[in-house]
């Protein structure tokens, strides 16, 4: 049977990806340029017996998805910069209470309300450092409508597998552009569900590390009783200040991501085999970069592209290896140097790093990148 094909907007594809992954709850507060995610969910969720709630604000929206997730549902919220700032307190709560949830954050200009309809990539640091304290961070930066669908499915898988919030962060261009999408058949993409407890309710502890770094999560209302808090907690979920335990728990929570970096990190290498100049880019900017690489190659310049698909955890190992091979990196991004700083950190001075930054609401065009390639080659 022929596959279902549609001409979809990025935000619509994110919502469809969430539904494919089995999402049954959306709690949100609409904000440009992410609103279409909420629109689609408000139409589709009631049809499958799911729930859509428009909350009083972004903080309430984040609280609602945490609560719904603890009942066993796969949950989604969608927002943009100003909303992401507001959600931070509860994102930290979801991290420490180890509650799976997916946040689609469409990047527009900032800080504050900034430029609501202009594209940006300036929330990537907020995805890791926005909420205080040490905590795991996973952030995906898709570059096409098809990929936004697929990466939203993967975000749900990672959230469920590692019991942690996962962010999907398209820039406004990827979220608002329309492309042809081929819907995967049911079962074609992997769909992961959280591990349920194997012990009877009386023996259940929500943070029982004898089951490994990701303890099984019971659904509220299924007969299992446990306590949820934002305080450092013991195995039973009740607050504790026992020093050795708190230290071990903090380390375990971060280790969930750090020890599984190869399972989480995805990237694409294009024309890098003999490259002397490597462009490191993500989101819509990576599409400009690919165009520039093709133009450079036509002119005999050995340029290549390392496209970041998983921004957090950062592909440290891969960038470090590239630094030993290329003469220079070029890092185009719609902010003032966020990824550039990470690339410098990983390159450890072995290759020069040249940023191209734009925060004027306009995309970085291929011509700008090509010019820089010629300058540094």
């Amino acid at each position, binding site marked *: 049977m022929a596959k279902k*094909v*549609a*001409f979809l907007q990025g935000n619509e594809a994110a919502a469809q990806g969430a539904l494919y992954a089995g999402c049954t709850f959306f709690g949100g507060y609409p904000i*440009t340029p992410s609103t279409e995610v909420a629109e689609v969910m408000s139409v589709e969720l009631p049809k499958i017996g799911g729930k859509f709630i428009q909350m009083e604000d972004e903080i309430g929206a984040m609280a609602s998805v945490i609560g719904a997730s603890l009942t066993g549902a796969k949950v989604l919220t969608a927002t943009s910069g100003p909303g992401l700032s507001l959600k931070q307190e509860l994102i930290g709560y979801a991290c420490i209470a180890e509650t799976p949830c997916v946040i689609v954050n469409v990047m527009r200009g900032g800080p504050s309300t900034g430029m*609501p*309809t202009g594209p940006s990539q300036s929330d990537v640091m907020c995805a890791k450092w926005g909420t205080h304290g040490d905590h795991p961070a996973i952030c995906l930066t898709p570059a096409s409508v098809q990929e936004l669908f697929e990466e939203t499915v993967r975000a749900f898988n990672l959230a469920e597998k590692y019991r942690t919030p996962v962010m999907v962060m398209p820039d406004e*261009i990827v979220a*608002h*552009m*329309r*492309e*042809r999408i081929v819907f995967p058949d049911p079962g074609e993409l992997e769909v992961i569900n959280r591990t349920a407890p194997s012990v009877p309710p009386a023996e259940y502890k929500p943070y029982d590390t004898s089951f490994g770094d990701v303890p099984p999560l019971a659904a509220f209302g299924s007969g299992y009783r446990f306590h949820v808090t934002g305080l450092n907690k013991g195995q039973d979920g009740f607050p504790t200040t026992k020093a050795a335990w708190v230290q071990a728990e903090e380390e375990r929570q971060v280790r969930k991501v750090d020890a599984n970096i190869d399972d989480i990190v995805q990237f694409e290498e294009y024309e890098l085999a003999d490259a002397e100049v490597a462009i490191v880019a993500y989101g*819509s900017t990576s*599409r*400009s970069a*690919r*165009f520039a690489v*093709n133009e450079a190659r036509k002119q005999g310049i050995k340029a290549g592209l390392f496209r970041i698909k998983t921004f957090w955890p950062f592909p440290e190992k891969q960038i470090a290896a590239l630094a030993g091979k290329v003469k220079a990196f070029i890092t185009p991004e719609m902010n003032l140097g966020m990824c550039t700083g990470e690339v410098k950190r990983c390159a450890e001075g072995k290759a020069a790093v040249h940023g191209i930054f734009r925060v004027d609401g306009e*995309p970085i*065009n*291929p*011509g700008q990148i090509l010019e820089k390639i010629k300058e540094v080659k």
Partner: protein
Amino acid sequence: MSQRYEIRFSGAGGQGLILAGVIMAEAASIYDGKQAVQSQSYGPEARGGASKSEVIVSDTMIDYPKATVVDALLALTQEAADKYSHDLKEGGVLLIDSDLVKNIPKGNFNTVAFPIINTAKNEVGREIVANIVALGAMVALTGVVTKEGAEKAVLARVPEAFMELNKKAFQMGYEKAMAARA
């Protein structure tokens, strides 16, 4: 056609130009089997303000989703004509509303002008379908999608009750552009 073909629909917010771009791209991508990407840029206003919708059509993978050198430009307002004609390529197609764009952008363009909004209002019967009149004209002038594919894409996007109206608008735009070009 192995190269990129870049089309820009521009005017004021609320004129339905984003939809016109979406339909053009759908015609290319779904009905004509080509690659297409549609994107837009607009201000925070719901109505008014300069607005543009861009469509890239190609036989091969499209990387950069925005226009680089525009092959065909529609401008429904003077502001849009002034703001968005700077990167129209030499010999490119320029379609303007002759009532609203009095100061025609200077350059070596294939300029076609007819009263697009007035055609919708007085000849088709509803001003609201001006975007479809413009779409019909752009399909005729660019030849980048088939007329059949574009018509199918229009009808797939409009409610049953407005099919005839939109069909008429599309046809009228197509014919007027052909006549104006000749």
